[in-house]
């Protein structure tokens, strides 16, 4: 009797787990990206090993009329790295560090190397990356292809630290590309979302590794722009900066805190520059983040804890390389049928508080589960054809917990388009590596160079060998 009950329970539990996970985003035989949206079957995934092999893949695809998509760590979220029935070239195994030149302060790496690989290689020389995302899990190729930005407020977006790269184009040729050689391709392939060819290796310029002292300040959203202008931007010793806006119901989109990393020349680098390995306190942080995701009271508690935690960090010192490898383990989330997706809005400083008011109004009327907003600063940088920083901008990185069902996605699309209307009203733009909820009109209004970009695509790759859902979503016509 007891045994039958136990068996029945076990069978029921198994059935429950099966049904719960029987959704497209959990299909192990389909390929998708970090978003788990839009899973499809592809012809095959090939690991990039050497140059000759990559050239052969491009030639084979041309002969057979197949498409090629290029994948790094696949942390983009709009099908940028794959295409139905096409070949996916997985660049993560093409990841050697080719040369560090301490005199010129440059590093040359294969495109599949991650920022962690780069940091490990340059840290012993007292060097550091100029611009990168907060975390170091991404590939260099994937990061320059979306023209990333991060906590550094002095070095512009990533394109600025790229000196040159080699590009395998649709005709099977390998081209050296820099601001002087094949210069036309430079602002196309950087921020080109894998549409102009496979970036093989990259030469990046580096900064010095330095010791920073961490300080944090609290303020309201209304005070932040002036604070940034007068206290942060005007102090050249502040090198890295980020801020957070509260999503907790008790202080919704009003409370903020900012964290600054100020050079401290009294602390020698040697002896303090050992790279942090592993992550601390993942279990409690992930638990807290789960509560933040699930409950309003969880959001209040999480916000309080964050503020308190950064209070305790006040005055601590950290090397640039360690400040640029922040933790990500606590964000991992695999729940079937749901995911945490990023959306990012660039807003000129003088428009910030007015935008946030409009944003608040949209969020209040749409039922969106907003988990976190971080704020970064990017300098004006119009070099990339699809540049998002047509003037100096605050970047509001918003993390939403969203259902992956068709209905949930339709709802999300409507809500995001309303947010984007507000973004446009305040001279803003949005970030393209994430799920493409924008309407074609909104995209075109915020990226007026779209015509040039896609015409150049046709010119360099007339047969559309390099293909992905970014192209399909935004090409239009």
């Amino acid at each position, binding site marked *: 009797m007891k*045994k039958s009950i*136990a068996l029945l*329970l*076990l069978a029921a*539990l198994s059935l429950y*787990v099966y049904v719960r996970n029987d959704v497209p985003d959990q299909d192990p035989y389909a390929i998708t990206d970090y978003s788990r949206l839009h899973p499809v079957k592809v012809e095959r995934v090939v690991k990039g090993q050497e140059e000759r092999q990559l050239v052969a893949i491009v030639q084979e695809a041309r002969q057979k009329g197949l498409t090629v998509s290029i994948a790094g760590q696949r942390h983009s979220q709009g099908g940028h790295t794959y295409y139905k029935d096409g070949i996916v070239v997985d660049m993560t195994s093409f990841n050697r560090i080719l040369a560090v030149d301490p005199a010129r302060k440059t590093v040359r790496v294969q495109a599949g190397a991650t920022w962690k690989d780069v940091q490990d290689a340059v840290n012993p020389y007292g060097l550091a990356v100029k611009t990168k995302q907060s975390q170091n899990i991404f590939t260099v190729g994937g990061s320059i292809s979306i023209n990333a930005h991060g906590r550094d407020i002095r070095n512009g977006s990533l394109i600025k630290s790229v000196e040159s790269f080699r590009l395998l184009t649709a005709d099977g040729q390998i081209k050296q590309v820099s601001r002087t050689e094949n210069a036309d391709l430079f602002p196309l392939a950087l921020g080109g979302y894998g549409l102009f060819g496979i970036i093989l290796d990259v030469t990046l310029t580096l900064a010095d590794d330095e010791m920073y002292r961490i300080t944090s300040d609290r303020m309201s959203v209304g005070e932040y722009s002036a604070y940034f202008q007068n206290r942060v931007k005007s102090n050249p010793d502040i090198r890295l900066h980020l801020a957070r806006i509260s999503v907790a119901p008790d202080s919704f989109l009003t409370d903020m805190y900012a964290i600054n990393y100020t050079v401290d020349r009294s602390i020698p680098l040697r002896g303090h520059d050992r790279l942090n390995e592993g992550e601390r306190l993942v*279990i409690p942080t*992930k*638990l807290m983040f789960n509560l933040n995701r699930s409950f309003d009271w969880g959001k209040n508690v999480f916000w309080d804890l964050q503020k308190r935690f950064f209070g305790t960090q006040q005055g601590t010192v950290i090397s640039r390389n360690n400040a640029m490898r922040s933790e990500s383990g606590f964000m991992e989330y695999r*729940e079937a049928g749901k995911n945490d997706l990023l959306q990012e809005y660039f807003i000129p400083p003088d428009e910030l508080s007015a935008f946030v008011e409009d944003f608040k109004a949209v969020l209040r009327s749409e039922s969106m589960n907003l988990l976190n907003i971080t704020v970064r600063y990017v300098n004006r940088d119009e070099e990339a054809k699809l540049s998002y920083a047509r003037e100096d901008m605050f970047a509001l990185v918003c993390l939403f917990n969203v259902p992956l069902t068709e209905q949930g996605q339709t709802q999300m699309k409507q809500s995001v388009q309303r947010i984007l209307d507000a973004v446009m009203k305040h001279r803003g733009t949005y970030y393209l590596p994430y799920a493409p909820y924008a309407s074609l009109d909104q995209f075109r209004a915020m990226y007026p160079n779209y015509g040039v970009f896609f015409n150049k695509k046709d010119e360099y790759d007339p047969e559309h060998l390099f293909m992905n859902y970014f192209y399909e979503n935004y090409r239009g016509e």
Partner: protein
Amino acid sequence: MNALNAQWLIRSQSIVTLAAGMIYPYYLLFLKNAGNSYSKYGLAFAVFTVSSAAVSQWLAPRLDRHGVRMLAASSLGMAAVMLAFPWVMSYGLVLVLQLVMGICNAMQKMSERLLIADHTQHGSRGVVIGSFHFWTSAASGFAVILGGFLIDWLTIDALFYASALLYALSAWAVWRYGRHGAGRAAAAESQRAAHRQL
């Protein structure tokens, strides 16, 4: 002897399989990551079997007298290993832990068999062994599903810690009831011996 006397054994070993079943499939994933190549992965397993085989020869002559102690020690050893895993940062240390687990495995497997034999009688073992197998298998079924949820919700490290807790619990259960049960088994054995003499 009947099934009742073996119940503490079934219970404590169900906790052990709960602890083991919870971690085992996920532990394999973890090991594969630590190994990079399949041959390195294979080696990690070979270390386990070699240490298990070697220590069995040292344990064998001591088994009859110290069965319960060994069973408890194996659980405690496993608990320690589970606590250590999240902190391991090198392949060399993974091998050391595999070695310790090999030793625990020998202690557990050998003493478990001994105690089953001690607590059953020739001709009536089927039921007890069946019961033993049922509960330990069912326990690992539940464990592995729970383990999946726990990793999704927290992290694989949390699973290692949960498993350590269960191993510690089973060590306690073995110690608490095993001595008692073993005492009874010994008493019964001497009774039987007395009967035979009569």
